[in-house]
């Protein structure tokens, strides 16, 4: 019996073939099939929302089937309160990004949409798989389309950026794979009845008994893999290049979804699987998170290219995820999950907008965009709203998530009050950008976006505002129950 999750995972990959074959002669067909498939998958994810039982902590809609049983590999998928919000932004952003590609991708449509659908399969798979090797498989499937997106449809430095992206993230994941394989081997000894396994639920039971040095080895190696994707401060250098060179709809996927893979991995695997290791490593990880937040904000302050600035915003904002997750408090972890959700939407909107602005004005240089109000008045008002979301102004979901992260951090140690510097800097660079772009005397002539592009941009704002004003449907009944259950199991930190 094929369940809803499997349909959502594999439908895009299956439809990638007809998209490619039919789209080769007829680009419009590729567009229709590409956008249509992402819309169907989004509809399926809405169905998942309906079926999902709220307020529960365990994995739901689980499916399990033997895959390579001779090596202990099972096909196992399922979602809980941590994966559901990410699954939703995955299908939602895929739909919006595919729709945004309609105008912004101008050649080789068949290849583009076929790769797009394979990407969607990978990203949904990452957020739903419950077997380590299956997870790694989807993790790598995401990589290859992204390499081609940047390399073929990217900007002037696309060749350099794509290869840098590929080598950085592939090396990171190779180190991560070591952790996964080591888990299989070290929990497969005779001390653990039932034989070695890659299944998440089996490992979650076994790992707490694993010796501390072994836990530390696995936690550190998997951290490297996730941290490259997140990215953290010294390993982030692929990000500005990749984000800036990628076409705008792909930047939406990169910042909105690909970075979330790192954050999701950190929470799902690093934080929840290695309680003993976390109780040793959390000061280092949270400090790295803090440095990443402040570093990302400071670098964004001096960026001249609006797209580069937005890209560095991601470094800034993903630092919150790292900080919140490894405070190992209910507030911090819930905030981290919610931050991934809200940041994905806000950054997606900003990137898509930067693409439209570039298309309509021919430049992305912040100084050259002076007086944009005259050319694109509606876009500028949307830019204000998106910047407010990214600045975490109350009323937007981002405020709730960043507030929760900082609250979680402060409940652990007052030293984390330094974290307050980051939002201040964020507000600083956004306002400075807005002052130069939007608050200058308008320069004509008017060259506004089409209505459908405006509607795509507005679609990002809807969930941001709804959950910013009234977060309980997602925070209280989806994220919190799961986080409370898991965080309670983290030895030594559970009491907080």
């Amino acid at each position, binding site marked *: 019996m094929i369940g809803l999750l499997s349909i959502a995972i594999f439908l895009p990959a299956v439809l990638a073939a007809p998209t490619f074959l039919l789209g080769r002669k007829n680009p419009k067909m590729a567009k229709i099939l590409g956008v249509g498939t992402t819309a169907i998958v989004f509809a399926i994810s809405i169905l998942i929302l309906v079926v999902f039982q709220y307020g529960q902590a365990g994995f739901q809609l689980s499916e399990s089937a033997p895959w390579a049983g001779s090596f202990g590999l099972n096909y196992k998928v399922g979602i809980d309160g941590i994966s559901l919000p990410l699954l939703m932004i995955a299908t939602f952003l895929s739909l919006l990004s595919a729709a945004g590609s309609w105008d912004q991708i101008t050649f080789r449509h068949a290849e583009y949409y076929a790769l797009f659908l394979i990407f969607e399969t990978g990203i949904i798979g990452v957020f739903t798989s419950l077997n380590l*090797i299956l997870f790694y498989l989807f993790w790598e499937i995401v*990589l290859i389309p992204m390499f*081609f997106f940047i*390399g073929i449809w990217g900007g002037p430095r*696309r060749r350099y950026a794509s290869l840098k992206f590929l080598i950085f993230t*592939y090396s*990171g994941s190779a180190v991560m794979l*070591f952790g996964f394989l080591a888990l*299989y081997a070290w929990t497969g000894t005779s001390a653990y009845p039932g034989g070695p396994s890659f299944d998440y639920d089996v490992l979650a039971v076994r790992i707490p008994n694993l010796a501390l040095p072994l836990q530390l080895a696995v936690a550190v190696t998997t951290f490297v893999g996730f941290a490259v994707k997140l990215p953290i401060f010294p390993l982030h250098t692929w990000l500005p290049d990749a984000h800036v060179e990628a076409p705008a709809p792909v930047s939406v996927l990169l910042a909105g979804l690909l970075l979330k893979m790192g954050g999701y991995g950190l929470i799902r695997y690093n934080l929840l699987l290695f309680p003993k290791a976390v109780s040793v490593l959390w000061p280092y990880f949270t400090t790295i998170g803090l440095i990443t937040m402040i570093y990302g904000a400071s670098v964004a302050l001096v960026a001249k290219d609006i797209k580069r600035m937005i890209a560095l915003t991601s470094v800034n904002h993903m630092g919150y995820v790292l900080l919140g997750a490894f405070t190992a408090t209910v507030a911090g972890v819930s905030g981290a999950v919610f931050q991934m959700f809200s940041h994905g939407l806000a950054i997606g909107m900003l990137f898509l907008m930067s693409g439209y602005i570039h298309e309509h004005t021919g430049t992305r240089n912040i100084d050259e965009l002076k007086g944009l109000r005259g050319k694109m008045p509606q876009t500028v008002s949307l830019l204000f709203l998106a910047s407010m979301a990214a600045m975490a102004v109350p009323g937007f979901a981002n405020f709730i998530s960043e507030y929760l992260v900082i609250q979680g951090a402060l409940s652990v140690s007052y030293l984390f009050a330094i974290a307050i510097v980051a939002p201040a800097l964020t507000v600083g660079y956004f306002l400075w950008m807005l002052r130069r772009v939007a608050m200058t005397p308008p320069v004509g002539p008017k060259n506004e976006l089409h209505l459908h592009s405006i509607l795509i941009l507005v679609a990002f704002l809807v969930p941001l505002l709804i959950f910013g004003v009234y977060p309980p449907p997602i925070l209280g009944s989806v994220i919190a129950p799961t986080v409370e259950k898991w965080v309670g199991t983290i030895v030594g930190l559970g009491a907080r």
Partner: protein
Amino acid sequence: MALFSLTPFLSLAVFGLLATPAGFLRFKKSKLGFAPFVCILGLAIALVSTVWLGFTSSAPVSFGGFQVDLFTLFFSGVLLIVAIFVTIASLQYMREDPNKGPFFGLLLLSTLGMIVLAASMDLILLYVGWELMSIPTYALTAFRKKDPNSNEAAMKFFVLSALSSALLVYAISLVFGITGSTGLTAIASSLSTAGPDVRPFGVLAIVLFIVGFGVKMAVVPFHMWIPDAFEGAPVTIGAFLAAGAKMAAFAAAFRVFIVGISAFNVDFYSTFAIVAVVTMSVGNVAALMQKSFTRLLAYSSIAQAGYILMALATPFTTTNVPLGLAGGLFHVLNYAILKTAAFVAAAAVATKLSITDLDSFNGLSRRMPQTSLSIAVIFLGLAGVPPLNGFFSKVMLFTGSIYSPYTWGGYLALAALINSGFSMSYYGWLIKRMYFDEPQDQSRIAEPRVYMAVLWAATILIFAIGIYPDPWIRLAQSAAAALVGSRGL
């Protein structure tokens, strides 16, 4: 009927001898003689009978030192697939060559030598198989007799190969001196009780075996001949050497070390671990610096040999399951398919562009889209990207290392994984050249159908094994179990 289990061997021998004279017979007006078809027929009969034997036979069939078990049949299947791909590609590649008879005849006889190696449980038979495999390959490497590069390559290959054969003979005689036998099981039982006085000779024999096999397996530091041989030889013979001869040498090494020498109380495992790490590191770093496609393939094949060596370094887990060994055998299968296909793609490019310089790959996706797509898939498979076949065998190999009883197992796996990550730099770089760079010449090139048939077959296999690896893993596991089982016979 025990004799039926000899069908693959007999088919290769008979058709191998027939192929050379068949080269003189021709179809009217066609340049293609009968030889390639005799060759394909012989290989097909051998492959079908191998598969049939694999499904029907349960107990190993032994004729003294000659043993047909699942390990033999596994290698026989892998090597025959390689030989069939090479033969089909050579149909196109050797189209203009007048000497087709000897070419295809030698190909079959060399294949016979390879599968004899996999079947040998006796060191004398092993040596016979070794020479039967090697001697035709010297001639095949030098097949373009008027091409100085081809001759130089063959000369270099021949001298090193002859040296390796000599070292093997010396190792065999030392082992005979210690144990008084050439049968591997007898050697094993004798070595398990060997006293300290013979220990130095035993260690010397092990070193000589490692060097002797190492030359053919192209492990560092005995890898120097590989890049020159692959570049100078006809490209399809490059595939045969890289995927055929090399894997057959691994078959021999598996037999000798796992069945015979593992009974001896000498830690050769850590030696193999060091050699494995050095081999994969040198291969990967050197591959990054190559300017020719065939040389890049040569160094990547050296790196892959390093991964397979891990199976000899850490064959068993702490629970005594041959996980690393099964992973090694699975990687032999995957590597053989990937590497043969890579060389066939090189042959397609070489035939059409008459050059395999890496710069000629710039923008190749516009000119030869099918070839480029398959090269991209093959390279991602070699790098170990899921869901392609190379991923699962690497996972088994690396897990086997961590899972092994040795404390250095984890470091070995980490070194291999870092290598695997690093290898993406040159694999990705070539994909970048093919897909992202601009070609100097935009014209579309007609892609030869024969090559495309092989490439598509290989690409489908690469995906099929990668997406549903279960039956193939079982195959490798039962082959590994058969190898371990042949110790006790």
